[in-house]
C-alpha cells in the first residue's frame, strides 16, 4: 500500500477506535455505578461537535504558542501512529514522542493564563516525574529481547512466546502507565474535576477538537504498544478483543476508585515503577 495512504488509514482507525473505546469505557463505568450512561459513540460525536463550534481565544493567552501547542499535540500522536503500526520503528522513538506529549500537556495548561490550566501544568510536571520511571519498562524489554525495534520484538515473541509471561512486572508497569492516561483514572491528576478540565479548561472550538482527537489516538496507541510488545503478533481481531478487554478492565478500576491527590498519585506510580524495575531485573537474573 502507498505509504501516505497507509498513514492516513492508520490515523483514521486510531481516531475512530480510540473514540469508541472511550465511549465504551464511560458506558461500562456508568453501568457499574447504576446509571444508564451516554451512548458509546458519545465521545466521537463530542469530538466532531467541537469542529463546528465557534473558536475563541482568551486575551490572556500566549499567542501564537497557545494555538500551536494544541495543534502540535495532534501532530505528535500522528507521529506515534507512523512509528507504531505503520513502520513498526523504535520503542525509544515512541518514548521520545511520549516525552514531547508530556511537555505539550504541561504547556497547553500554562499558555492560557487560566489558574486552573496553571495548576494542571504544575501537576503535569509532577506526573512526568512519575511516568518517566514507568517508561523504564523499555530498558527491561531491551534487556530481554536485545532490541528496541518493534518489528524485531514481534519476531522475538513469535519464536520465544509472549513477553507478558517472561517479564510480567514490566507489563504491569506499562499497564499502570495506560491506566494513568485514561479519563477518570485515580492517577488523572492533570484533568481532575477539582481544577475544572485541567489543561483543557481554556480551549474552545477547533483547539478542543484537536485535544480530543489527540486523546483518542493516544489511547489507541498506548493499547496498541502494550498488545504488540507484551502479547506478540496479533491479527485485527486479536487487537480489537485485546483493546476492548483492557478498556473494560480499566473502566472497572476507574469506576470504583477515587481520584488520588497529586502527592499520593505520584508516590503510588513511583512505587509501581520501583517494584516493576527491581522485580523484573531480579526475575531476569533468576530465570
Amino acid at each position: 500500500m502507498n505509504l501516505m495512504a497507509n498513514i492516513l488509514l492508520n490515523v483514521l482507525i486510531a481516531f475512530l477506535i480510540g473514540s469508541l473505546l472511550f465511549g465504551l469505557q464511560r458506558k461500562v463505568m456508568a453501568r457499574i455505578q447504576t446509571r444508564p450512561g451516554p451512548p458509546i459513540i458519545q465521545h466521537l460525536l463530542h469530538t466532531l461537535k467541537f469542529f463546528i463550534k465557534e473558536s475563541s481565544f482568551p486575551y490572556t493567552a500566549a499567542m501564537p504558542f497557545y494555538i500551536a501547542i494544541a495543534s502540535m499535540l495532534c501532530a505528535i500522536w500522528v507521529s506515534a501512529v507512523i512509528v507504531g503500526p505503520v513502520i513498526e520503528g523504535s520503542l525509544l522513538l515512541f518514548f521520545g514522542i511520549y516525552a514531547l506529549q508530556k511537555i505539550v500537556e504541561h504547556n497547553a495548561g500554562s499558555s492560557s493564563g487560566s489558574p486552573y490550566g496553571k495548576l494542571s501544568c504544575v501537576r503535569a510536571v509532577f506526573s512526568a516525574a512519575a511516568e518517566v520511571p514507568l517508561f523504564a519498562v523499555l530498558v527491561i524489554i531491551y534487556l530481554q529481547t536485545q532490541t528496541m525495534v518493534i518489528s524485531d520484538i514481534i519476531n522475538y515473541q513469535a519464536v520465544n512466546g509472549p513477553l507478558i509471561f517472561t517479564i510480567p512486572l514490566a507489563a504491569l508497569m506499562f499497564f499502570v502507565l495506560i491506566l494513568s492516561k485514561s479519563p477518570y483514572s485515580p492517577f488523572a491528576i492533570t484533568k481532575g474535576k477539582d481544577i475544572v478540565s485541567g489543561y483543557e479548561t481554556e480551549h474552545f472550538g477547533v483547539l478542543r477538537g484537536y485535544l480530543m482527537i489527540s486523546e483518542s489516538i493516544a489511547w489507541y496507541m498506548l493499547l496498541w504498544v502494550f498488545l504488540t510488545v507484551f502479547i506478540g503478533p496479533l491479527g485485527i481481531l486479536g487487537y480489537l478483543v485485546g483493546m476492548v478487554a483492557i478498556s473494560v478492565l480499566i473502566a472497572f478500576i476507574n469506576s470504583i476508585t477515587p481520584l488520588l491527590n497529586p502527592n499520593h498519585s505520584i508516590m503510588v506510580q513511583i512505587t509501581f515503577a520501583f517494584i516493576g524495575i527491581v522485580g523484573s531485573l531480579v526475575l531476569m537474573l533468576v530465570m
Partner: protein
Amino acid sequence: MDIATLGGQLLGQIPLGDIVLYLTPFNLFMFAGALIFTTLIAISRTETQVEAEFGSLNDNEVKVGLKEFKIRRFLAVVCGLATAGAMITGDVFNFTLLVALIGIVNIGIVSAVKQIDVLNAAFQYGLIAMIASLPLFGGAAIILASTGTLSILEIAQLSFTTPMMFFASVLLILGIAGETGIAPFYATKAEMFRTPGSPFILIIHLSSLLVIVRAIEILLIINKPF
C-alpha cells in the same frame, strides 16, 4: 552492538572534523522536535496570569516585563539550540558540554524573574547544577581514559564493558540528573512554575526530558548488556 537496535536504521553521518553527527530516525525526530519548539518560543508572546485578589472581587494580572521577556527569550532560544545539538551529537564530550550549557541557561531563565521565592529556587538549582558539572565531565573523561575514544560510533563497535566504563556511566547519570534538575534534584526547579512565561518554562521541561531520553540511548551504547 548495533546502534540500529536502539534508535532505528542508521540514515547517515555528518563528519565535521573531529565532530561526527549521526542520524537515526530517533535522533532526527528529537532534533526536529527541539528545533520546532525553539522556533515557537522565539516568536511567541508570554501569557498573562489572572489571579483572584484576596479580600476583594477584583482580579490581579501578572505579566512578564519587556526587559525580563527579552533576556528570558534569548536564554530559552540558546537552551533550545543546545538541546537540539545534544540530540544529534555523536560524541560523549559534546553531549556533556551541551548538557552543561543547558544547565547554565536554565539557571538564567529562572533567575531572570525578580521574585524572592523564584530567586531562591534559582540559587539552589544553580548550586546543584554547578556541583553536577564535576561528575558530568568526570564521567566523560573516564570514558575517554578507559576506551581511548569519545565517539559514540566507536564505542558502539567495542565488544566489552569494563568496570570503569560502568563507573563513568554512573557519574554521567548523576551529572545529567543534576544539570537538568530531574528527580531527586527536581524540587530546586519547582518554584519557577509559579511564574508567568509559559514558553520559557516549556524549554526547561523540554530540555530535561529530551536529554534524559538521549542519555538512555548513550548509556545503553556504553554499557553493552549483552
